[in-house]
């Protein structure tokens, strides 16, 4: 795919996406939002932004969950609109983006059924972008093999599931392993797909996916400390398409504590600053937030180039971050807990 012919098929959607991006809240909006006293204030301010009257038909008093639902609904409508109007290979690309949400939904539902929760109350919690037809029947499966044979075999996730069939039961530990194995396979596949597209898409998307892969590797390692996960098993969960592959991953596999992870990160210029000064103490930002900030930066830079698919991915990620920010602020407002209201991650 080259820049010359790009606009024939994808120009409209790219323009649309960039237009949507223009509606992302600015720093001044956030400054106004954090001054809100009650959620109605929030609604009033959001009315003057690109969100418009998305809450206009909601009866007072508002709740955070309503805001969350409406934010998601708006994002999903925009995404679906682009998906419906897309042609190959963009449609496959957009589908790939949704697979991540499908994995999350599957894991959510399995964990839910494991804890004897009714499937009906779980379904609304699933991300609408990752819903699929067989989703609601997921609770018939008791083993990974059953899950594969009965439910997932018809979904696009089936090939990713191959590695997990051997697991015996569905317990917490195994579910986490399944999640990470699925995610690993998914990321690597997505990475491969983006490399075949070529042009700026490859350039931008591979960078974004490499970051995603590395982030997962770090988080998996840090979260695995103090669990019964063996180092070998852990090593199998690392997505092998990031910048850490292969040396960094090998070192991460040997790590026993946080400091050692930090030492690994020190070898990589882009991850070193994230670990420096990250912490849980007051005034410090958590590592998670650091990663989010870095992600926002990468996604913003995706918009610097034209004629590629990265903008769609980047838009979705930025918008997700914005939703997280708004929800964070609304939670703080709703609970009158303003001390930490400023720890949202500004996008512009």
């Amino acid at each position, binding site marked *: 795919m080259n820049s010359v012919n790009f606009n024939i098929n994808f120009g409209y959607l790219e323009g649309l996406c960039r237009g949507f991006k223009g509606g992302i809240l600015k720093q001044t909006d956030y400054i*106004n939002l954090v*001054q809100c006293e009650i959620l*109605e204030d929030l609604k*009033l301010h959001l009315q003057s932004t690109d969100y418009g009257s998305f809450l*206009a038909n909601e009866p007072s008093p508002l709740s955070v969950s309503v805001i969350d639902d409406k934010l998601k609904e708006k994002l999903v409508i925009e995404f679906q609109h682009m998906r419906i109007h897309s042609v190959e290979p963009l449609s496959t690309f957009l589908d790939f983006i949704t697979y991540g949400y499908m994995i999350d939904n599957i894991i959510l539902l399995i964990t839910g059924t494991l804890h004897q929760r009714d499937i009906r109350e779980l379904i609304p919690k699933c991300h609408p972008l990752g819903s699929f037809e067989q989703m*609601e029947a*997921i*609770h018939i499966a008791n083993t990974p093999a059953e899950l594969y044979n009965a439910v997932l075999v018809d979904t696009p996730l089936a090939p990713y599931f191959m590695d997990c069939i051997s697991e015996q039961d569905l317990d917490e530990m195994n579910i986490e392993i399944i999640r990470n194995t699925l995610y690993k396979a998914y990321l690597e596949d997505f990475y491969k797909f983006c490399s075949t597209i070529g042009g700026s898409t490859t350039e931008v998307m591979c960078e974004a996916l490499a970051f995603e892969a590395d982030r997962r590797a770090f988080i998996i390692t840090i979260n695995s400390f103090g669990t019964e996960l063996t180092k070998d098993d852990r090593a199998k969960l690392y997505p092998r398409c990031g910048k850490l592959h292969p040396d960094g991953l090998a070192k991460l596999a040997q790590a026993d504590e946080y400091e050692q992870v930090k030492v690994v990160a020190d070898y990589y210029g882009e991850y070193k600053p994230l670990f420096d000064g990250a912490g849980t103490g007051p005034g410090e930002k958590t590592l998670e937030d650091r990663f989010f900030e870095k992600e926002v930066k990468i996604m913003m830079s995706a918009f610097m180039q034209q004629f590629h698919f990265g903008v769609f991915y980047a838009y979705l990620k930025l918008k997700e971050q914005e939703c997280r920010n708004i929800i964070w602020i609304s939670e703080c407002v709703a609970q009158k807990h303003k001390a930490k209201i400023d720890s949202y991650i500004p996008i512009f």
Partner: protein
Amino acid sequence: MGSLFRSEKVTLCQLFLQSEAAYNCVSELGEIGLVQFRDLNPDVNAFQRKFVNEVRRCDEMERKLRFLEKEIKKDEIPMLDTGDNPEAPQPREMIDLEATFEKLENEMKEVNANAEALKRNFLELTELKHILRKTQVFFEEAASNGPMTEESVNLLSDEGLTQGGQQALRLGFVAGVILRERIPAFERMLWRACRGNVFLRRAEIEIPLEDPVTGDQVNKSVFIIFFQGEQLKQRVKKICEGFRATLYPCPETQAERREMAIGVMTRIEDLNTVLSQTQDHRHRVLVAAAKNIKVWFNKVRKIKAIYHTLNMFNLDVTQKCLISECWCPVDDLDRIQAALRRGTERSGSSVPSILNRMTTKQEPPTYNKTNKLTGAFQGLIDAYGVATYREVNPAPFAIITFPFLFAIMFGDTGHGIIMFLFGLWMVVKEKSLGASKSDNEIWNTFFGGRYLIMMMGLFSIYTGLIYNDIFSKSMNIFGSSWNADIAYPGDMGNNVEKLMLAKTYRLNPNSTNWSKEPYPFGMDPAWQFATNKLMYVNSFKMKMSVTIGVMQMMFGVILSLFNHVHFGNYLNIYAEFIPQIIFLAFIFLYLVVIIIAKWIYFDPITMNTNCAPALLIGFINMFMFNYPNKDASPTPPCSSLTWYDGQQVIQTLLVVCALICAPWMLLVKPIILRQRSRQVKTHVAVKSITVTEPINGDAVDSDQEVIHHDESTRLEAEVEVEEEFEFGDIFIHQVIHTIEYCLGCISNTASYLRLWALSLAHAELSEVLWNMVFRIGLGIDGWLGAIMVPVVFAPWACLTIAILLLMEGLSAFLHTLRLHWVEFDNKFYSGSGYLFTPFSFDDIMDVPSGLGDD
């Protein structure tokens, strides 16, 4: 015209409103719609303003009204639009309104909840009915087809089920209803999850069922699943649940099923009566609401608008009164005062509201009072750029020139009449058409420009008569002054008929064919058949285009004089206006003069037309200072010789004068400005004191100064910026301006030739359409012709409307628009103002209708 020539005088006023009277005063001001409020707290968030709670309550009321409106629309109840304009309710009435809406909403919600429950019940029963009916078919089929395969007998026959012990086979089954589009996945999942150990039969329910929540019609299918064993049953049930299939108990024997079916039928009938009663109740509630809903909407919108406006006000220190700033037209100050008095009276406040005029250096908004006719033209001008405050407004001239230039290009009486009638119809039916608010954008633009269309039609009739074109044919009203001396058998009395029979004829004014009497009005119809018609018409239209174009441009330059005088910009008069007018007049007006002189002095009666001056060559020679000598050999054609005494001297003088104007325009203004700025700089210290002194020392409006402290400092900064003189900037600006004007005069004159080109295209196109389409029908003789004429009339009429009226009309419209925006407006119009947008309830109530475009 007086009011349209320049925009209204607008002044900045300060309003002091008692807090209790503020609401009523603003409400009254909203009714008259003559005041544009300025936001005095631009830095304050929307949710931190004073009346945010009231705005929020209005939002809530609007939400309830929207909910009601949605319900009303769902039931397709007509909403009564009486068109009456309720006054903004008093703040205390808000509580009543809120209570009413609250009650209605709750009632509606209750009714909806009831209806939903009933509908759900009804849906379940219907589904059960279908299940019983369909499964009956399954079982019967199984019984009749039984002997064919043993397996199916065993599986499906009642025997198999009831006497399960026979082959140690105890089959269970579940029956249910599922959405039709989910069936393929459902079947696959069943097969996989149960490893093929279930048997599924399904049948479609032919009638779509109503979903109780959304009210949509959905297609569903009945299914029945047979399986063996308790474990499988659990699994099947889970899958059914996962696919949102509803399961129903289905008795195993036929008798029981029949009994159940009868029970279900009676329950459905009972439910139907209850349902219809609920619907009736709902309908009654909604009909009652539908009567008032528009009025309610208007009321709530008015309250909301008032509070929005109040949010822009400042509170004074004592909290007793609200202070606002607004732009008001000076002529309407009395009406505004009266409105304020009414508002104060209504609120019962004893202290009057005060309206105080302020002086400001800020540019006031441009406010043109328009009516229905001028509004469309003003819209066209505003689309290019809103006039600078008090600048000459091109709109009043456009009222005549716009349709006229359009008509020059669209000159055909027939087409003009159709267009005029269409415009007239819209104007006459204005009220009823305007009341039925259409969403059709195209129609709305046509309707918005109805007066424009009518005028354009009217003028086209006139130019059509001049061109003597009616559907590309000519009318011989006064009798042609051409006489055909063609030898033709028989005595043909009428000249035109003779000419027509001759098919082609070349008209030569030097011959005896011309009676030497001009045709009294417009073009002689004889030209219609002449082979040299195009040559004649082209020459006429081209010269006319240039003449009209130069006139309009001259007029534009003269209008710039009015601007300079009005703004006291006398430097511009002698540094710009005078050289501009000289440049234009000495070159282009001279061209027009010789065009007209040629028309007057060179006619075949008095002079030899062969020696009429060739204007183009003469004009080129004028710039080359090249005058052919009469005695030179070879002898130059007599048309290129001078044709009046002193022509050479006069023309040389004209060209030299015009050329001098270019450096005049270029240099004079920057140099004088530079000298002035040098003089100012020497007094800069003195001046800075004089600038600041009156602002600080102005004791009359001392409180005003306190409030606007930040603003006055900003203004001071502006004053200082103006004083800084950048010679380079001004000089470059002047260079651009000069080049643009000089080249512009040439290119704009050429641009006016589009009048000729478009008019030629229109005439040719309509002639082609006549010859190629309608002529076919007219050419056939006998009874066949009688049939053919109406047959070919249809396509001819359609094409005339579609191509000649719509397409050509649109194209002529756009070219006219361009001639006004570019060629005319750039001579005097800067269009850098901003529109006066008063706070008016009318704007809030109506969605603004389309701009006056064709």
